């Protein structure tokens, strides 16, 4: 089954790296098929940024998101732009400080989590907000990609010496999702 994840926000928030890690976890560690693409060009530096991951147990034909199963939106702009393309019954995860207005036309679930604030205030580095988000997505994927595989992929990709920081952020994200879901 084809499963589509779109990570959106601003350039510099680490969403492209998060997409690469998710794709790598799915394809290399879990032996599924995955395609990762990203917005490219002037918009990738500064303005809007997006990273897309398609996961499937079959080879993937069309490589871009058509209807997202999960949308992560770190900014109001990215929420407004991409929320109409979320699948009926899909999930939108937003940063609660970045996205204040969350009306959706369709039957989609919206979860709001303070990723950027948690990264800065609890974990101690704003830069790991992407790893908290990845932890949340790891849970939201409901086993489609093993959270342990995502963790392995994180540790293989992040700079030496930052493994513990990133792991703490990832674990916190998983926990936050569970708290929100009750």
């Amino acid at each position, binding site marked *: 089954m084809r499963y589509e994840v779109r990570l959106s926000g601003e350039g510099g928030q680490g969403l492209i790296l998060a997409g690469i890690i998710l794709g790598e976890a799915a394809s290399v560690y879990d032996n599924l098929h995955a395609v*990762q*693409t990203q917005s490219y060009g002037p918009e990738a530096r500064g303005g809007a940024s997006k990273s897309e991951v398609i996961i499937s147990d079959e080879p993937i034909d069309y490589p871009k998101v058509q209807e997202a199963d999960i949308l992560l939106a770190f900014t109001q702009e990215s929420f407004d732009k991409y929320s109409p393309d979320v699948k009926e019954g899909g999930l939108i995860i937003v940063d609660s400080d970045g996205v204040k207005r969350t009306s959706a036309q369709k039957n989609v679930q919206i979860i709001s989590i303070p990723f950027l604030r948690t990264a800065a205030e609890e974990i101690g580095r704003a830069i790991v907000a992407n790893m908290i988000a990845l932890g949340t997505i790891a849970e939201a994927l409901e086993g489609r990609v093993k959270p342990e595989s995502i963790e392995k992929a994180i540790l293989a990709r992040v700079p030496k010496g930052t493994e513990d920081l990133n792991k703490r952020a990832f674990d916190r994200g998983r926990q936050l999702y569970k708290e929100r879901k009750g």
Partner: protein
Amino acid sequence: MSKKSDLKFMSGNEACAEGALYAGLTFFAGYPITPSSEIAEYLSAQLPKRGGVFIQMEDEIASMGAVIGASLTGAKSMTATSGPGFSLKQEHIGFACIAEVPCVVVNVQRGGPSTGFPTGPSQSDVMQARWGTHGDHPVIAVSPTTVEECFTEVVRAFNLAEKYRNPVIFLMDEIIGHMREKVRIPEPGELEILSRPRPTVPPEKYKPYDESFGDIPPMAAYGEGYRFHVTGLNHDETGFPTNNGKIIQRTEERLLRKIEANKEDIIKVVDMYADDSPEVVVITFGATVRSARAAVRTLRDTGVKAALLALYTVWPFPETQVREVTEKAKLVVVPELNLGQLIYEVERCASADAKVVGVNKINTEPITPVEIINKVKEEL
């Protein structure tokens, strides 16, 4: 089951670079250009570590010249570029054709004539790959559809370049170049690696274009004691210019025959449902193959007898394969990220009873499966 260490999640550009190294690349010269720059970036880090040479030249023309020079010393050589750079390289590509110098020219296609749209995908250099340099000349162009195929098909591109002593255009596009997928890196020896035919005669008896060895004369390397002349002028078997019309005609015919007589070896197509007398045939190449594959599957689910012909060799054009697959077809659809190029060749070769239509797009987005499906429904 493959070992995890052989599996890499990488971009098409990285896979192309890694595949070139597997094929034996030892020399890269280039001038960075979006969306091909990651190939140069990757090789600038890897080639020096693996005993090769990387040079960033002052421009695309010079880098193509450097590639030809390196190949003449026996090195497997490559450059990578995109539209504007591909235009600049054309003069030297012609030189490589007439001087029979093996090399691989990667073109990660982007939008527009001139500097156009650097970051957008495109497949609009189909005809430039064939006719970009002047004069009658032999051309091979190979095009991958997945990241893993960037690896395996660039190996095939090197093999064809070496075997036929000809430049090979590796026609990628921004979509495949920048997306990431899983690649299984083959073991050394797993994929066949070919090298140019070498002289069997001593230096004093060597002639660089000696046709008595057949259409593909053995090629000596500068620096190994063989002295020979290389020129872009029409030349005789010694490599020196000639104005003997008979020799000029004979040599140019041989150059074209190298490709023409070996089409069976050079051409690679992959079909889907072609043996089911399809009424609709979708013919395309590169990233658009992926959308076409999804479209053909959906069409078949709704009862349309559709098939796909994916062209991994774009040039020489797979005439016979297109003729055969369209034999019973009513409709032939050619989706391509340009305003209609490949379709000219398809029209030339498809069954006369089939209507040939294009799906064309240059708005910086890929062609979607739905757009192909809608075209089929509209025409049927």
